[in-house]
């Protein structure tokens, strides 16, 4: 009986460990493959390495906005460490502050989609407003670990 309980407990731990590993890899993937990749498109247009294109800009802002809808659910208790996470422990100490930064990122990207800047001159201030969110959150809630 005892052995059986231990086994169940071990499986439970394993499962929760895996679940947390999923949360970590999911949130990293959202940041890198969605937010970071969209940023790549926007920054190339801002730098003039790519011609400005309204549809591409709106799509990139929209991808970022979609991320803000689920990203906040990927920080369950227990996912503070492991899986090469660069999330700062401050997220769990100040979940409200973290969520507020995420909400601001959501608002700014939604406004950028709505603005659908017609040309590069209209795009630059909108881009600047969105880009400021990245370091505003990373400054407080992210820490390099390697």
């Amino acid at each position, binding site marked *: 009986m005892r052995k059986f309980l231990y086994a169940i407990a071990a499986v439970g731990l394993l499962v929760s460990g895996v679940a947390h590993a999923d949360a970590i890899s999911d949130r990293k993937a959202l940041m890198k493959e969605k937010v*970071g990749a969209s*940023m*790549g498109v926007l*920054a190339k247009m801002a730098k003039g390495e790519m011609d400005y294109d309204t549809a591409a800009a709106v799509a990139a802002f929209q991808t970022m906005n979609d991320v803000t809808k689920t990203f906040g659910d990927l920080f369950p208790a227990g996912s503070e460490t492991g899986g090469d996470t660069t999330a700062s422990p401050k997220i769990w100490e100040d979940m409200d502050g973290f969520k507020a930064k995420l909400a601001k990122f959501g608002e700014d990207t939604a406004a950028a989609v709505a603005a659908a800047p017609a040309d590069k001159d209209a795009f630059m201030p909108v881009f600047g407003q969105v880009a400021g969110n990245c370091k505003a959150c*990373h*400054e407080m809630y992210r*820490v*390099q670990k390697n």
Partner: protein
Amino acid sequence: MKRLAAALVIMAIAAAVIFWVLTMPQRLDATVTANADAGDAARGERMFNAGGCASCHAAKGAKGDDRLKLGGGLALETPFGTFHAPNISPDRQTGIGAWSGADFMNAMLRGVSPEGEHFYPAFPYTSYARMQPEDIADLWAYMKTLPVVEQANLDHQLPLPFRMRRGLGLWKMLFLSDQPVVAIASGDDQLVLGRYLVEGPGHCGECHTPRNLIGGPDTSRWLSGGPAPEGNGKIPNLTAGAGGIGSWSVKDIAYYLESGFTPEFDAVGGTMVEVQENMARLPASDRDAIAAYVKALPALDSQ
């Protein structure tokens, strides 16, 4: 027996005298400080941004014009205790409005106060000591144009042995130098400028160079990263060694300093955010020079 006791007393006195002389704060020669009050405020703004003074002396997280209110108060946690950044606004009572240009130059280049005491290296004068006196004079002229803030701050909270400023004289003998760290063939003006900005005002080594047991920079591992001083996370290796940023081009480095985005479009974070925002305020030619110097660093693997 008596003889031995007498010899010991004499030796102890001699040691105390040697300690006293060796640890004596060294003020600058009057010829160096002659033009300390004749700087140019407009040029000084560049040094203020390169030096990142607001990161420690303005209120935590200050943005916009609040960055120019240098009332101090920020608590800096270090392995040697907690330091509280002093008020360096032009207020005569609680700030440094009553200082002369020479006093300011002695603080920046020698880490010595107007009262002739040593400053703690939590004030990164170990880097600022490599600055040109003319640049310090310009910075001083600029600082006098900033808003007066009347604000007294807490004393540092340090364990007993570190409370005695005199002992810092020995530390300074080991680590205070106005000489450059990385050798550069003369004639390359851009690299020389980059080295000046990084090793001097930019004080990049204060974070990116690992420290030894007594808190001095390990120059044999210059800018190769290490544990963060606040004890949380790591500071990246800026050289081209394993774990470093060898894959970044000079342009990538300059763009990171301007925008805060890495070549993979990751965004800057942590304590580097304020540094990056200061770098963004410099002329592009300064960022290009810094990037060229970083790219030319001797490669060291991360440890």
